């Protein structure tokens, strides 16, 4: 079964939770869903990340039984729900706390649905809601998602692919998204701004990878983004 079909089937299976208010699809599948016709050509990990605002935790928990026919929580880690069929992807629940420091993380403990609350997800803001496989899903605004990718330490193959996901988002963004990205960047503390710029230099020097956007034609644009973020930046090593 094609990856796109598995992604769409998983969205359908997780529909009762995804249609809960304020719940976001986050992570590397977002650019796949933003491709024309939901083409889903990027090769990323085989899971669907669902961002649950901590204020909506109880409401999401109440909808979990509706997922049971097709998915069940992992015995090892109940924030991961495993599919009964190989035609679906894993579903990974993560927490969003808008008040959290972007560099920190904590566990929202719960017997039924514990959540790892990633600080970087606090940079996300709700964006477009789109219909996918008959399910209304809410996506983050591109700027926050790009910044979330760039503010996190990236190492190894997974890190490189995450940076290319950020590139995929930059490629489909427009003027307003860039303005939002810059404004959100300027609200970060200096250490995190440095991490963003450092990740952009890594992105600039990456080679092409199969199934991912080719960064090489975009190098001048990445350099332009670096210049834009550096303008007025007093803390440059």
């Amino acid at each position, binding site marked *: 079964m094609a990856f796109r079909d598995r992604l769409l089937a998983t969205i359908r299976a997780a529909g009762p939770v995804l249609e809960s208010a304020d719940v976001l699809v986050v992570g590397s599948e977002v650019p796949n869903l933003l491709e024309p016709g939901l083409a889903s050509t990027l090769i990323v990990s085989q899971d669907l990340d669902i961002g649950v605002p901590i204020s909506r935790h109880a409401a999401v928990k109440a909808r979990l039984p509706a997922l049971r026919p097709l998915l069940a929580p992992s015995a090892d880690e109940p*924030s991961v729900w495993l599919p009964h069929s190989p035609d679906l992807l894993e579903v990974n629940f993560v927490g969003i706390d808008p008040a959290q420091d972007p560099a920190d993380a904590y*566990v929202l403990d719960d017997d039924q649905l514990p959540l*790892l609350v990633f600080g970087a997800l606090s940079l996300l803001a709700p964006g477009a809601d789109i219909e996918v496989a008959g399910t209304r899903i809410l996506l983050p605004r591109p700027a926050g998602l790009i910044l979330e990718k760039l503010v996190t330490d990236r190492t190894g193959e997974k890190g490189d692919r995450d940076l290319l996901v950020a590139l995929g988002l930059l490629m489909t963004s427009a003027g307003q998204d860039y303005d939002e990205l810059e404004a959100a960047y300027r609200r970060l503390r200096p250490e995190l701004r440095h991490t963003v710029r450092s990740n952009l230099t890594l992105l600039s020097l990456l080679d092409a990878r199969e199934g991912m956007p080719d960064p090489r034609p975009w190098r001048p644009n990445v350099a332009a983004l670096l210049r834009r973020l550096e303008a007025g930046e007093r803390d440059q090593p």
Partner: protein
Amino acid sequence: MSSALERRVRTLRARSAVRAWDYRQRRHARGAWFRLRRVLADAKAAFVLAPEDARQLLEVGCRAEPVGREFDPPKLILFAPAERVARLASARKVPVRLDRDVLSAGYLALIPFDPTTTLARA
């Protein structure tokens, strides 16, 4: 309490501590790699040069990038106009990447991107 999630939190906090340490060292030797990547990020193309050709570029006013002196052995890295580099007999084009070609080069000419390029694709 989920021990798997707690382990991930500990890992994330450890990474965060390393990042803060890296950041505090950014003006020292550890920051040299960022500065080298930053210079390369502005380069449209890179050419390995013979020492005499690199010195010729210095003589016509091309400025040595300070980051080159932060490595041992030191590197002479300079930005130069493409047409001038094209006239140098020794110039050998290499990919703009942190790979063996760039890291082993003692003399490197970089061709800058057009600084008027904007973020949006033309």
